[in-house]
């Protein structure tokens, strides 16, 4: 976790007003918001934003969300999973309609980022909505025409819970070196021949890059998945310094 570009903003990251331009229903529990943000300074794939909501009596609440869109895209996409006991996520995932406004600032974070200039294999491991920042990387990879080997191993509960399912299939069909491996851990559709266990050392060893290829590894998902996948990859011989993690705890909603 040592080699990272340095970014030193010298002035305060301003709160900007984001306007919801489009709402994409990704799964029954997940939606993406396409946001118009005046003077957005741009971002790198993997970075996040802070979103702040204000009620009509001035009460405020803020949370962090990963950016799911490529830097090349015109509008910023955030993907939000509904967490019933949450405070901000139920609003963003159920209440918000096109035209609504809220505050946002960023981009934030400079460690969990990938650039299409990188030539080593890209090895992504996702659980649930943890796929969002990795999707920003894959969209950036496609937009930039990077054809180096890339792999996404993505764990979802069921087929209907796969976020970006059609777009991932389209990206994998480009024959540009990307492979997507889904595992469905709770429920599989009839005729499913893919993976159906939790991501484990055996799966990562069988479908993943060899440590000799020195892939750049990004893992994002619930803490337990991130911990076990990172540990498994180290045991398989991957360099801990090439593994970057982002954890979506049970809280943070």
């Amino acid at each position, binding site marked *: *976790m040592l080699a*990272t570009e340095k*970014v030193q*903003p010298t002035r305060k990251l301003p709160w900007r007003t984001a306007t919801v331009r489009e709402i994409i229903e990704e799964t029954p529990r997940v939606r993406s918001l396409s946001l118009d943000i005046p003077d957005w300074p741009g971002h790198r794939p993997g970075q996040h934003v802070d979103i*702040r909501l204000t009620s009509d009596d001035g009460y405020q609440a803020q949370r962090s969300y990963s950016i799911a869109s490529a830097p090349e895209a015109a509008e910023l996409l955030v993907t939000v999973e509904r967490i019933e006991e949450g405070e901000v996520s139920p609003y963003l995932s159920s209440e918000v309609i096109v035209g609504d406004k*809220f505050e946002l600032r960023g981009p934030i974070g400079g460690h969990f980022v990938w650039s299409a200039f990188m030539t080593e294999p890209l090895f992504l491991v996702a659980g649930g909505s943890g796929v969002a920042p990795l999707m920003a990387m894959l969209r950036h990879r496609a937009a930039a025409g990077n054809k180096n080997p890339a792999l996404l191993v993505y764990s979802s509960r069921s087929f209907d819970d796969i976020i970006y399912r059609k777009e991932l299939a389209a990206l994998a069909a480009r024959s540009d070196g990307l492979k997507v491996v889904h595992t469905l851990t709770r429920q599989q559709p009839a005729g499913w021949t893919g993976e159906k266990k939790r991501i484990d050392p055996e799966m990562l060893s069988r479908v993943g890059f060899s440590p000799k290829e020195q892939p750049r590894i990004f893992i994002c998902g619930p803490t337990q998945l991130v911990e076990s996948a*990172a540990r498994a990859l180290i045991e398989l011989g991957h360099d801990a310094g090439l593994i970057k993690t982002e954890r979506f*705890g049970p*809280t943070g909603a």
Partner: protein
Amino acid sequence: MSEPPVSRGFRGKQRSSDHAARTPPGQHLVNDFPVLSAGPTPRIDLVKWRFALTDGHNKFAEWDWEQFNALPQTKIKTDIHCVTTWSKLDTEWRGVTFDDLLAAAGLDEAPTPFALMHCYGGYTTNVPVEDMLEGKAMVATRFAGEELDPEHGGPARLVVPHLYFWKSAKWIQRIEFTETDTPGFWEELGYHIYGDPWREQRYAGD
């Protein structure tokens, strides 16, 4: 700046919290203990574990696990605040205060005004020495009466609860005294050099 836009229909949940006075601006209370780390959790063999106080030239003291656990132990109950906006009240830690570490190293006072924490796995973070004196910081080995989990920084982590929790370095290996305030890992990546949650110093320039 101008008034923030009202988020139509947003009510919020924690406005009536009994603990508002203990919740810094922009934070919300949680009951669980989220894990946030930039890389894999290091697995550290206690037989090989060492913890040291150093500066650019000297090693003032170094303890192995047994020696460290023989140092005076202090329990604290405190609130913690993560920059990702969660706060957790009344967390219980046990470990060795920074004051006791200095004393055990035979130092009447810290040799420099600043310190940089170095950790197993490569993480670093900077804290002014003054922010660790008089019981304000400890190297903790136990949380809520149990050994500290590796995910939460075990075997030992710094706890400086009055600053955002990224300052409370997990898997601490060495405190390096520095003449100047030297940015650590997140501080180099745009996070605030000091990180006071009550002044909402999340990012550089805040």
